[in-house]
């Protein structure tokens, strides 16, 4: 411990002096050039918002023996709190940050200089520009309306989000409390940002123009009606999945969850399916970000990990991408074919969030929901 600490203190001085130069230099290196430097570093720490980092760890260590990848599965919200606290303490434990919650990440981590963007040069020409800036998106994840396929073999039991405000769905719509999970607050925020579409869908559904009744717009009106209709709030997506998905229910509820949780249908005895035809949209699709710590202890190995997580040159990206090449996750690399079992991205009707836009009214929507509870 003492040795480590002494080394660390000694290293900080040298490191600070050379960091800017070394980092800039490394950004242009290929994986082959990074490898010997990374092997010298010997280890790399990854904070990941998904447990699938466990499988990445095994695959990475097999691909690059001699580099110990320490993967830590920490929720996005917690990562943000932790990284801020660590920055305050002048400690940088993580080298690589794998995170969602981008509307919060941009102001709290990127603009404060806690994390820094990195795009491996190898894949730079195969990731659309919108997914490279301000931070590199590895894939797109979702929070969408899912229903029980076994109980509804002919497709989704609803065709409009406004259906969820009807009496027959009272106390039968489930989601995670938007005041406890950031991505659900993003979903609510997006509904408000898309108020014009919501107003249109209202007219289509009920055959008359929407009456706002004191709500500021159609999106807020929908949220108020949804809460009036006794929407059920739970604390995790797994609770939603189990409630909606368990096979053998006569009259299962419907709920907002991750499309990719469909991959657990077989293991868990669920029949989750996305209600993709719902108007105006079944939910949101948002990026999962890969970034470097602004002061990584293992700068070369960190870059190597991001390179690895962006997939290799085989058809579906090889072992680095394998845990994320599942139905319901959309890899951002343009040369990787879409997963055959999922709705293709261009047919997937979910709204693409604009994190900067979301950030502008997110807190306001949080307040609205607070008054409804």
């Amino acid at each position, binding site marked *: 411990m003492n040795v480590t600490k002494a080394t660390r203190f000694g290293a900080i001085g040298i490191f600070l002096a050379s960091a800017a130069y070394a980092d800039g230099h490394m950004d242009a290196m290929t994986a082959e050039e990074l490898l010997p430097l990374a092997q010298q570093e010997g280890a790399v720490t990854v904070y990941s918002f998904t447990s699938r980092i466990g*499988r990445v760890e095994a695959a990475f260590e097999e691909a690059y023996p001699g580099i110990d990848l320490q993967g830590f*599965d920490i929720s996005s919200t917690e990562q943000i709190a932790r990284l801020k606290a660590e920055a305050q303490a002048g400690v940088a434990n993580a080298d690589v940050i794998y995170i969602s919650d981008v509307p919060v990440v941009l102001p709290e981590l990127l603009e404060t200089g806690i994390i820094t963007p990195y795009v491996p040069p190898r894949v730079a020409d195969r990731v659309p520009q919108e997914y490279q800036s301000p931070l590199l998106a590895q894939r797109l994840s979702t929070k969408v309306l899912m229903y029980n396929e076994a109980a509804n073999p002919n497709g989704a039991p609803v065709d409009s989000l406004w259906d969820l405000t009807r009496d027959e769905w009272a106390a039968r719509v489930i989601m995670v409390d938007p005041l406890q999970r950031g991505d659900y607050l993003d979903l609510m925020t997006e509904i408000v940002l898309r108020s014009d579409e919501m107003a249109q869908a209202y007219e289509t559904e009920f055959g008359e123009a929407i009456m706002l009744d004191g709500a500021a717009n159609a999106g807020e009106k929908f949220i108020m009606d949804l809460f009036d209709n006794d929407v059920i709030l739970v604390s995790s997506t*797994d609770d939603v999945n189990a409630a909606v998905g368990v096979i053998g229910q006569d009259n299962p509820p419907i709920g907002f969850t991750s499309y990719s949780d469909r991959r657990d249908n077989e293991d868990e005895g669920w029949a989750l399916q996305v209600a993709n035809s719902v108007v105006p949209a079944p939910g949101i699709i948002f990026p999962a970000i890969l970034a470097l710590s602004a002061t990584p202890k293992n700068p070369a190995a960190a870059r190597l990990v991001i390179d690895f997580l962006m997939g290799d040159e085989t058809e579906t990206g090889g072992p680095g991408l394998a845990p994320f090449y599942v139905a319901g996750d959309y890899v951002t690399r343009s040369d990787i074919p879409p997963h055959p079992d999922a709705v293709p991205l261009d047919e997937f009707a979910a709204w693409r969030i604009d994190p900067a836009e979301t950030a502008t009214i997110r807190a306001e929507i949080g*307040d609205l929901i607070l008054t409804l*509870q």
Partner: protein
Amino acid sequence: MSDGSISSQGRRVLFRQGTVLKIIVLALLTALIVLPLIRTVLFTLQPDTFVAWSDVLIGRLSTNLFYKPLANTLLIGVVVSTGCVLLGGFLAWLVVMTNVPYRRTIGVMATLPFMIPSFAAALAWGTLFRNDRIGGQVGWFQGLGFDVPNWLAWGIVPTLIVLTLHYFSLAFTIIAAALATVNSDLVEAAQIAGAKGRRILTGIILPVTTPALVAAGSLCFAGAVSNFATPALLGLPVRMQTLSTRLFGMIEVGQVGRGYVIGILLVLISGVFLWAGNRIVSGRRSYATITGKGGRAKRFDLRSARWPLFAIAMIILLASTVVPVIVLVASSFAPSSANLFSGWTTHYWIGTSNPSFAQGVPGIVYNADIVRALTVTLALGVAVAFTGMIVGLLASYTTARFREGWVSAAITQISFLPLLVPGIAFGAAYIAYLGAPIGPVPALYGTFALLVIAGTAYLLPFAVQTGRAVIQQVGGELEESARITGAGFVRRLAAITVPLAVRGLAAGGILIFVKIVRDLSLVVLLFTPTMPVLSVVAYRYASEGFGQFANAITVVILAISIAATLIANRLQAKSQPWLKD
């Protein structure tokens, strides 16, 4: 008394009043508890976060943000603490003062519910009583054909029941320790005077155990109002919020300012209640019950009520210990949470990594992370119990012997503070406090020392409260005579107070060990990759849908806690006359 003279005479006067000791203890507690909290308060007073105060207290959001959760919180605090003192007191009375059958078994079982993490008990409740409100799997009773109403499945009623069944064993521990020291002289005198059992209970035993009853009620109140897991799991589906779930939600979505304001208000409100309790105790003159003379009184003969009372005790204890443990163990073997008692596999315990099962996570026996976390957790438990009891002894000794003056009152109040601070907020405050270097002290972020210091501060209320209940009962006359014969402070403490109070101190030490070993909220922010602890590892598995691994680890935590308690009971047996027949 002191007129400001700086002569040696004056110094002795100061010392005799315990002023030096008081100042040292106050400084220690300030450094451990007050400074980190002040940082939190200062945070909310910054120009851009100050608006959070009006949002919480007077804005259009305040009803939902603060006042409704406040009402629920107070209801929980009052009902749970009352229930705990009644249940814990009843069981303690049975075990210590009566001839109820199987006293030993009742005594051991009554300490167990507190070792079961409250979230496990809440999950167990759901497994049994969950109705079809949120769809998916229904609970056992609904499955048997009963129509479980919403009020019994979700919300305030189950929260009250689960929390009472969780915290009553805390009350039991404290009250039993106090009852065991009731001086036989008093009871015998009453018996000779012809007083009946009820008269002795209300006239002697209740009055002399008042400090323990108030301490127990206070601890249960503070624990119940800051508990997060139970109201979060059972209240959310009917949108019941408490201040702690509100605080957590606010911090989760990045509204840290509002979260801290709610946290500060939670501290203040609980503080008012505890201050009132403290006033009741310090208004009385003396609670000394262990004096230089006296022995054990005869037990009350329950006669025909022996077995009925035994049955009542066992119903309470089975509901609070055996049932949740069975559910916990079963769910560490069941691959699908939907079918708790079928298709069992030992994979989650002893399976090797298999890519097609649980995403390749090996059973906990083969998982290097978990083995390392176990080592760190045990070391942390021992270290925090040790440092906690040292600081707790100093603080409780000081306030018990030198009760007068504002410094003592301040020590008492400060030592209570951490109870009212939700662990996650305390952890955040500590990272801000000791995370960065302070003068010559290096940044402690990510070190074992930070975990120990924060854990010691966070659990100090338990050390101080249990220590105080015991020390107040060690008569000052024994120490007085030692001082007359020339023994110094340390000598008196080591030769008289500690040996006489060792039972209460050990009980406090065990409480602390168990609490830190299964604590989640405090360490969830303090843990770092190099310092993993079991509860955080379990939490990470649970939040990623690997409930079985989480439950298996929880079973390990439970086993450690129960073993600790049993070993401690065995070590104490020689000095536990109330368990002898």
